[in-house]
């Protein structure tokens, strides 16, 4: 029994350590790029220069911790029209999206 438990624990650690950086698969990345352009774009502009929502340009976003940006995508901003996207996006999706908006991934 013991080796089995140890194995599970180790796997759990590995999984949690990689959660923040697990990159979505290529087909999902295509969908996420589309979402940024179209769905984020409907309020923030397709060129991300802002609209009813604030601009999402890299130099502006870089002022905030990435974790806070991920939370904003997943949970929205109460009191503003920014909705929580967690019903459509996983944490990995949101983390990749933030990196994409910051220009860190293509």
């Amino acid at each position: 029994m013991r080796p089995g438990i140890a194995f599970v624990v180790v796997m759990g650690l590995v999984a949690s350590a990689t959660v923040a950086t697990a990159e979505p698969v290529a087909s999902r990345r295509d969908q996420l790029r589309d979402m940024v352009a179209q769905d984020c774009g409907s309020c923030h502009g397709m060129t991300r220069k802002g609209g009813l929502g604030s601009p999402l340009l890299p130099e502006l976003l870089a002022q905030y911790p990435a974790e806070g940006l991920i939370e904003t995508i997943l949970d929205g901003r109460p009191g503003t029209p920014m909705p929580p996207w967690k019903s459509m996006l996983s944490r990995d999706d949101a983390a990749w999206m933030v990196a994409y908006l910051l220009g860190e991934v293509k």
Partner: protein
Amino acid sequence: MKRPLLVAALLLLSACAQPLRGTGDLGLVVERADGRVMVVETTTNSMLASVPGLGDLSHAALVYSRDARFAFVFGRDGGLTKLDLLTGAIANRVVQSGNSIGGAISQDGSLVAVANYTPGGIKVFDTATLAPVADIPAIGADGKASKVIGIADLPGRRFIYTLYDAGEIWIADLADPARPALTKFTNIGKLPYDALITGDGRWYLAGLFGEDGIALLDLWNLDRGVTRILDGYGKGAEPLPVFKMPHLRGWAAAGNEVWLPAIGRHQVLVVDKTTWKEKARVDVAGQPVFAMARPDGRQVWVNFAVPDYNVVQVIDVPSKRVIKTIEPGKAILHMEFTPKGERVWLSARDSDKVVVYDTQTLEQVAELPAAKPSGIFFTSRAHRTGL
């Protein structure tokens, strides 16, 4: 000797020229990702021309000149383009701000006003030349610049619009364009996200995102000020996430009823226009974006925000029942009825096509390829207040 030459020259000319045609069955389809618009005609459902070079057309809107020959296209990048439907060419273009959302044309057709986000305010141009006429910043009572939404034309050379951040409704009177006169209504409610004017030009409604309710202004009785209707229409229920802002401009009036997308609930609200009380609610498939009445007011067509944007529902107005749910394509962004309503055109962004439905049979009758189409605008708008 001269006459045969003249005849020959005339024949040559007429052979080169386009045949004469009207614009009453024409329209434009925005291809938003490519900064391009299609000139289309609705008699045989075809494309006549494709016009590039209009800049960033995400969330593009447009209005028509009163002769329905020219369109004034408002781009997200602040571009204002005057487009000739008959030649399929750009007649004039200016970049007038950093970020705009829409505009309106005056009752007499002489002025076009653009509503801007950055810097917030409206700018007014001569429709003949696109020369600037007036620049009216939107500084709210709080002293801050505000984004402008929900602009519409009023009788006389007047425009009405709403300040999103400040929560105010303003009327700009440009009877003397050099000295615009402003009438302001403050404290109308939190975060008005869009507005509409009824086709008779009497009622202006601003939907509030920050509160459950709608701000109403009686334009025939301005001294009564802004009142609140549908106050707390969602009270007691946890609002659902709104993944795309509803649009009120494609408003639906059917007889004495106004049909409005609810905010944060999957319902369309029916309001009695004589009492401004809620009359009914119709449950629908998602967060409604547009609720648009067929021109005869017998049907209301509804499209939805992501993730429910592949379906469109048709509501029968007398019975207030959804009579059909259709799936015309992927990501249905907009709908436009032909002038008498026998057909409706729908833009399916992610299917890269425009789909045409018969509104009697509720069956598809045609489709046209289009690159990421968004707004569809037919020239019948030229003669309607607020469109």
